[in-house]
C-alpha cells in the first residue's frame, strides 16, 4: 500500500508522534528552499515542507532557519548532502542524516541513511522506498527496537524497501 506524505503525517499525528512547527508561511519557506536546492525539489519533498513537520518522536527534521526578513534566514544543514545528490530531511539524533534522493529525478524518490562517519559521502542503507513510507518507518523505529523486532521488520510497512537502487536495506548492509 502506498502512503503519500500527507497520509503518513496524518497517521503519525494521530499517534501523537509528529510535531509541527508553529507559524510561518509555507509558500515563502518552500520558495526559499527551492532557491537553495537549485530547483531540485521532488513533489514529495515540497509536500513534506508544506506539512510543516518539525519532529517525529526524537528525530528532528532538518530545516533551514526561516525568517520573513531575508538577512535573518539561515540555510543550516540543508545542502550538506548535495555532493551525494540528496537532501537531508531528518537527523538520527547522533550526527547522521536521513536524506531524500535527488539522483533519480523521480517525484517520489527513496530515502537513504547517510552516516556522519563517512562524512555523508554515500548512502549506507535504504531507509524507505518513498518519503511517505519512510515517515511511517521513522515513527515506528524506536518502538521496534524496544520490542526487539527481528531484522527486516521494515518490510511489513514498506514492502518495496529492498528495491531501492542506491543502497540495500539495513539488514543487508553488513
Amino acid at each position, binding site marked *: 500500500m502506498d502512503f503519500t506524505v500527507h497520509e503518513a503525517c496524518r497517521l503519525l499525528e494521530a499517534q501523537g508522534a509528529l510535531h509541527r512547527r508553529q507559524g510561518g508561511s509555507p509558500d515563502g519557506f518552500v520558495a526559499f528552499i527551492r532557491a537553495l536546492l537549485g530547483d531540485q525539489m521532488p513533489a514529495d519533498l515540497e509536500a513534506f515542507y508544506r506539512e510543516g513537520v518539525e*519532529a517525529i518522536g*526524537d*528525530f*528532528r527534521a532538518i530545516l533551514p532557519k526561516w525568517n520573513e526578513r531575508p538577512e535573518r534566514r539561515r540555510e543550516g*544543514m540543508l545542502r*550538506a548532502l548535495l555532493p551525494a545528490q540528496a537532501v537531508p530531511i531528518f*537527523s*538520527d*539524533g*547522533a*550526527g*547522521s542524516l536521513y536524506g531524500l534522493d535527488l539522483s533519480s529525478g523521480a517525484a517520489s524518490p527513496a530515502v537513504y541513511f547517510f552516516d*556522519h*562517519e563517512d*562524512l555523508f559521502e554515500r548512502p*549506507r*542503507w535504504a531507509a524507505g522506498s518513498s518519503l511517505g513510507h519512510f515517515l511511517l518507518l521513522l515513527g515506528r*523505529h*524506536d518502538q521496534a*527496537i524496544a520490542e526487539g523486532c527481528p*531484522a527486516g521488520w521494515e518490510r511489513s510497512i514498506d514492502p518495496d524497501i529492498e528495491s531501492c537502487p542506491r543502497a540495500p536495506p*539495513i*539488514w543487508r*548492509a*553488513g
Partner: protein
Amino acid sequence: MAGLQELQEVAHPKGIEDWMEQRRRDVAASWRSPAEILSHQRPLQPITLPRTPGPGAPSRTAHQSPFQDPELVELRREQAAFKDVVRAESRRNSWMAIPALAPIAVPLLAEGVSLLTGRLAASQLKRLATNQLTQEAASVPSPLTEIERNVVRAAARKRIAQANGTPASKIDGEVHHRVALRFAHLFPNADPNRLANLIPLMREAHLIASRSEADFVRALAGRTPTQAEIVAQAMRLDKLIEPYVLRVGVSRPPPLPRK
C-alpha cells in the same frame, strides 16, 4: 793451666800432636785419585731404545721381537685366561648389580620419565597456546553491523535523555560518541553508550568532530588503531568541541567561528 792440661789429656789421652799425626795418616791411607775412583766404578750399561727401522735398516725379525720371549708369552696367556674368567664371573653375577644400583636407578628413571613427560607437556602447551592464539585472533570482535549501530544510537539518545532529564534534540543537540562506533569493537569490554563516552553536542560541532575523525582514519591508512591511539584522538577532539557541548540549564554556547 794445670786444669787445661788435664782436660786435654781427658779428651786426647796421647796428646794433641799424636792425635793429629794419626789423623794425617788415616787420610793419606784413604785418599784415592780420581782415576782410581773411576776405575772402581761399575761401567755404565748402554740403554737400548726401541727404534722404528729406517728404510735401509733390516726389519725386525721374529726372533728379535720381545713378545717372543717364552716367559712373556706365557705371562700374556695367563693374563688373557684370567680376564676371560673375570668376564665370565661378572656376567654370571651381573644380577647382583640390580639391588645395588636400584637406589640410584629409581630416581634417575623417575627424572627421565618426568623429563619426557615435561617435554610432551611443553609441546602440548605450545600447541594449546597456538590454538588459543588462533582462537583469539578469530574471536577478535568484528565491527558493529549497521543494525547494531542503529540500536546503539537509539540507546544513546535514550541514555542522554535519561541523564539530562531531556532529550538532546530538545536542546538542538545530537549525541556524540567520543569513541566512534566504528571503533567500538576494539573496546570489547566497554559499553559504547557509557555516559563518559556520550556528549550532547551542537550539530555544527558534530560536523567538526566527524571531519577530525575522518582525518584520523585517513592517517591510519587502513591500519587498525590501538586503544591508546583512539583515546588520544578522542582527547584531542574534546579540546576542539568543548565550547560547543550542550548542557541543560546552561545558555547555548557561542556560535562557531566563521571560516
